[in-house]
């Protein structure tokens, strides 16, 4: 058994719902005080406390060995960030306790302490200091950080003039040069551009080989697979499963897929016609709404028709989650008699950059709208990105390409002739 780096016993955190947004006004307290006698009179046997509470974390007991890289997975609101916040002492637990052996740095956000009026140089110092680095340590690593961030030319420019990419790179660079014994990382390394993620993950990999412990929250299973030997799956504030990464992730991903399956079957009764569901003909990883390759794609929409449709118009659109339409077309003069139909689209490939998208399908007839549906669940693109590693320069297509450089023949011949 290696030395223990982090140990928690029955850790729990109770949040009052909406507490984060709350900002007391004195008036509210006074009003409350004034109304209390009335409320006591009005009370009807039930608890007077109408506020709702939520255990963001409950009975969490884990042990993490020194030098381990441990991934934490779970849905939004499962308690992952709360756990990191308690371990990094930003907030206190409501019950239980935790022991942390060693100097901790928490990376819950990139660029904490950055100020837009300060220059890149000044922000490196500010950010480094906030993350727990000593001044001498920052000075020693300064050149390395600047080189890592690739912002040499702009180092004395206020960061308000930086592009998002530059800003993120600078923030990444400072973070990548932290040398704590225990590093707590939330999601941050998974936003932004790929090459930098790789650079930082590589750095974190070497960090762990030096005996450092890393606790790593991410939604990107590939990163967790690549980095973590062990995984903890949180669900509603509790540890659902804990163990080798492959085992935990297999169960987690199966559960997530099942959850999205049970989501949808629209009810087609009582209307003229209705789209019931959609799916890809060929599932990837058992998921009929996920696309993971550049092969031809067949998309099917199931339409139930209850009463005859004349002069029908059927439209389809593909949108990204910001609502931008990426592709659309329509078919006109359709005739349907009652029954179930499969509307089937064959596409040569869908080279979109990884992420969620949705279909939008509609059906009109001579009397007007029959059905319109923002298809659920989303279409998820899970292909490996092949475009520019900065999102800013990657565009929306994940289009594979060949690139080569060769002498331009005619021009070379001419120059040869002249020579």
């Amino acid at each position, binding site marked *: 058994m290696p*030395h*223990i780096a982090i140990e928690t016993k029955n850790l729990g955190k109770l*949040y009052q719902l909406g*507490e*984060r947004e*709350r*900002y*007391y*006004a*004195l*008036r509210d307290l006074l009003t409350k005080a004034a109304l209390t006698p009335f409320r006591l009179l009005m009370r009807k046997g039930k608890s007077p406390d109408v506020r709702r509470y939520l255990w963001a974390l409950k009975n969490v007991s884990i042990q993490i060995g020194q030098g381990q890289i441990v991934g934490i997975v779970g849905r939004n609101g499962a308690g992952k960030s709360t756990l990191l*916040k*308690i*371990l*990094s*002492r*930003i*907030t*206190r*637990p*409501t*019950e*239980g*306790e*935790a*022991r*942390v*052996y*060693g100097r*901790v740095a*928490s990376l*819950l*956000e990139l660029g*904490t*302490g950055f*100020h837009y*009026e*300060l220059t890149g140089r*000044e922000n490196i*110092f*500010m950010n480094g*200091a*906030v*993350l*727990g680095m*000593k*001044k001498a340590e920052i000075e020693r690593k300064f050149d390395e950080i600047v080189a890592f961030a690739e912002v040499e030319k702009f180092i004395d420019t206020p960061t308000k003039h930086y592009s998002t990419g530059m800003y993120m790179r600078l923030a990444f660079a400072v973070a990548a040069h932290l040398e704590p014994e225990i590093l707590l990382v939330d999601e941050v390394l998974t936003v932004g551009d790929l090459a930098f993620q790789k650079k930082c993950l590589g750095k974190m990999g070497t960090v762990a080989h030096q005996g450092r412990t890393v606790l790593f929250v991410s939604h990107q299973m590939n990163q967790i697979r690549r980095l973590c030997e062990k995984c903890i799956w949180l669900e509603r504030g509790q540890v659902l499963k804990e163990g080798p990464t492959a085992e935990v992730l297999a169960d987690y991903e199966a559960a997530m897929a099942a959850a999205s399956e049970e989501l949808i079957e629209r009810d087609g009764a009582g209307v003229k016609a209705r789209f019931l569901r959609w799916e890809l003909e060929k599932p990837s990883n058992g998921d009929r709404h996920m696309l993971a390759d550049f092969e031809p794609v067949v998309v099917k929409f199931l339409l139930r028709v209850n009463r005859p449709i004349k002069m029908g118009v059927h439209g389809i659109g593909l949108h990204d989650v910001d609502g931008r339409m990426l592709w659309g077309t329509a078919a006109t003069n359709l005739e349907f008699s009652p029954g179930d139909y499969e509307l089937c689209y064959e596409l040569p490939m869908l080279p979109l950059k990884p992420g969620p998208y949705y279909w939008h399908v509609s059906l009109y007839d001579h009397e007007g709208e029959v059905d319109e549906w923002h298809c659920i669940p989303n279409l998820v693109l899970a292909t490996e990105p092949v475009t520019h590693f900065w999102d800013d320069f990657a565009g929306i297509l994940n289009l594979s390409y060949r690139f080569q450089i060769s002498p331009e023949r005619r021009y070379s011949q001419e120059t040869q002739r002249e020579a």
Partner: protein
Amino acid sequence: MKSGSSLQLPFVLIRPSSRWSRHDLQEMWEHRELLYFFVWRDLKIRYKRTVIGAGWAVIQPFFAMVVFSVFFGALAKMPSEGVPYPLFSFAGLLPWMYFANALAGATTAAVQNERIISKVHFPKLFLPAAPVTAGLVDLGVSFLVFMGMMIYYGAPLRMSMLALPLFVLLAALTAFSCGIWLCALNVLFQDVRYAVPFLIQFWLFASPVAYPSSLVPEKWRMLYGLNPMAGVLEGFRWALLGAGQPPGSMVFLSILMVLVVLGSGLLYFRHVEDIFADVV
């Protein structure tokens, strides 16, 4: 195989907050450079994008002095302990302006640094401490102007000036003590940010800035000393100009008062510090 159990290693114990726990002095000492960086940032940012920069540190007390001299000095014939009124009021405005700015800065310190509070653990006391410390630079700059005025009015140098650092310290402690109270309250109650400008204005007239404290009837003098700034202002004038009485019971009462506010403020701040991240 290493047989050492991890229990022997030093560790940080994380537990639910107990009601009144102590400030972690060791941790503050280890993080002391962060305080330096907060102060440094305050100074860097304060006068960026201003045309006259640190000139503002001079303009504020200087013009207040001019206005005071015209209305209280020349028109209202306010007594000034035998010192030219402009000198008299400037000697008061030096610590007063410092105090007012430091107090306002400390009040908003936690709310303004909400992002840092919710992402990193560090000694939160540094937040109100930073503007109180950074303000000393402005005080130094306007002090130079004051020296110029002393030369202009031919005021002599005095031995009592050596005591000035003590009164600067008292002013800083006063601002810090009141600042940590207001800083913590401001996290919980939005009302504080509206109340503070009003409070500072009110406080100005309750302190001997425009007038000497000898104007206050003798029997009320002790009560008056409960205002810690009364002691600071009397001390400044005595040290710089030899005006008024050497520090007596009123100043000691002020010091006592500051210690009470400081002690209670530290306790209250510590209590609220634990829930900062949950409510900011």
